């Protein structure tokens, strides 16, 4: 299926958000996630199933004012 990760389309066979993050190389990185504009807490990622066309945001700490 195709999902939109941080604005870029990705092909994935994984269904769970946590698995998709592993596939994309996030590993142990400190990130926080949202799916279709809704926050998904780290503990919920393993049971968050993605569907074709879902929009995933993966954010990390960054410089800010």
């Amino acid at each position: 299926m195709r999902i939109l990760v941080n604005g870029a389309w990705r092909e994935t066979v994984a269904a769970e958000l946590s698995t998709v993050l592993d596939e994309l190389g996030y590993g142990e990185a400190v990130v926080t996630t949202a799916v279709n504009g809704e926050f998904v807490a780290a503990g919920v990622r393993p049971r968050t199933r993605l569907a074709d066309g879902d929009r995933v945001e993966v954010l990390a700490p960054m410089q800010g004012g």
Partner: protein
Amino acid sequence: MLQVYGTPLQSRLLLGTARYPSPAVLTEAVRAARAEVVTVALRRESGGERAGQGFWSIIRELGVRVLPNTAGCHSVKEAVTTAHMAREVFGTPWIKLEVIGEDDTLQPDVFGLTEAARLLCAEGFEVFPYTTEDLVVAERLLAAGCRVLMPWGAPIGSGRGLNNLFGLTALRAHFPDVPLIIDAGIGVPSHAARALELGFDAVLINTAVAQARDPARMAAAFAQAVEAGRAARLAGPIEPRDLAAPSTPVIGTAFRG
């Protein structure tokens, strides 16, 4: 001592972490400012580059308290979701709430701001709303549960100082007990000193330090200005007057009569 949401702060200079020439200069500037609180943000992270991880380790090494922002959010929904994400990553209930209403001035959308503040305060967030000097909006934000306000001095990054002196003075007078932190628009240390002289509790500076030729030196200058302004406020400034008043006593002046 200044208290924000029950946290005492010795330093009245809060520092932004964006737009520095390098991470090393950022570190020097935070130390030179003697800042206890720095603002941070969330941005898209690539699984390959992981740019955010290095930044986060630098901030953690500084041992400062972080105030995450919702910069770039243009709607209540975006701001509220970003706040939840920030709380998870940064492990703090503090959120500098920005809901931008207009791109040329980066002026807050005060309607969206009050709505987002209401939602977040109800969920236990400790909200620092980036707002204007509007008294009615300030009332609404306090009613929503905010216990700190962050009125702008001038548009973000403009360096114009305290644009609406009358409005800001009225805000200070109207809410004598609410911590008010001037956020945005400060350009030089004299602007910061002025804010503290007027009774504002603190200032948040980013561009004026980060984009200075020597950021660490400018950070130190701001630290001194903030201390001077606060001391002057406590010392009780004189009232301005229109005509001269001789400072040297006139009684006993020679050559008169």
